[in-house]
């Protein structure tokens, strides 16, 4: 049985606790990197990370890109949204096709 984790600043994620997801309020990048590693190796198969925090621990997130589990998914927080989540989808199109042919005109 796997569980779902949510990482980010407290204000962005406390609501998810009511749904039964495990929330881990963290803002400091070094700490977040370690926490991510611990969660990924633990029993978490889906880890939601706020865009703001994800921007600071990109390298740690990239480690899990090629693995089937966990899925690390970016979500918008209350502040500091960078549009990174959408950016990542576009990036995977770019990786597969060679250039972004699907969403380049949406901007």
């Amino acid at each position: 049985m796997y569980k779902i984790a949510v990482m980010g600043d407290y204000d962005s994620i406390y609501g998810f606790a009511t749904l039964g997801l495990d929330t881990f309020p963290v803002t400091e990048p070094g700490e977040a990197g370690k926490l991510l590693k611990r969660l990924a190796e633990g029993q978490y198969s889906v880890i939601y990370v706020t865009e703001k925090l994800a921007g600071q621990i990109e390298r740690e997130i990239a480690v899990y890109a090629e693995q089937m589990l966990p899925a690390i998914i970016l979500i918008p927080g209350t502040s500091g949204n960078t549009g990174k989540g959408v950016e990542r989808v576009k990036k995977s199109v770019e990786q597969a096709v060679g250039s972004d042919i699907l969403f380049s005109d949406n901007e």
Partner: protein
Amino acid sequence: MASTQVNPTRMELNRLKKKLKTAVKGHKLLKDKRDELMRQFLELVRENMELRLKVEAGIKAANTNFVIAKAGMSEEALHTALMAPKQEVSLSCGSRNVMSVDVPTMQYKTKTADAGDIYSYGFAFTSGDLDDAVRSLADILPDMLELAEKEKACQLMAAEIERTRRRVNALEHITIPETQSSIKYITMKLDENERSTQIRLLKVKDMMLEDAHHYSEHLWDKFEEEA
């Protein structure tokens, strides 16, 4: 001309011919795999984008609701209300094979039978806005999980497509032409050897006939007689 050094022997020629056959077959298969992966990927990534935009809009709306809820009650009361969650979500993960790419499939289960059992507080000391906020977040949870599944599948497939594309290109532009030119080189070299052997034999035959019959001396005598 072969860029790498090859031995112009029949054994090498046979080996290269076999290699070319495998390479051509592999190239065709990999190309098919790439095309099919691409087709499925494009389909999936469109869904992924749609879902992501929906989820992001949902979360943003929920966040606004939470801010409103927070404004209506004290921070302590809010923390206390959300301190002990009643609901718990667990996932069972399997995997699905899409053109040799293992993508995860997820099914979620809530701890209590009623998935709507999300209010971990009594209603007496909290504002109604908080209920709305929690509900709006709960409504997008299924979409969030679907998003996780799809987005991960997209990432894995994108990586696999990139790898396959590189392989196809390497076969198409390097392995196959190089093997073909090596084969051509060996064939030409063998033909050349054969011609040279043929000429040598003709020459030897001439020399042996000369030794036996002394044609050139007769020719010389004839020439002198005529003169």
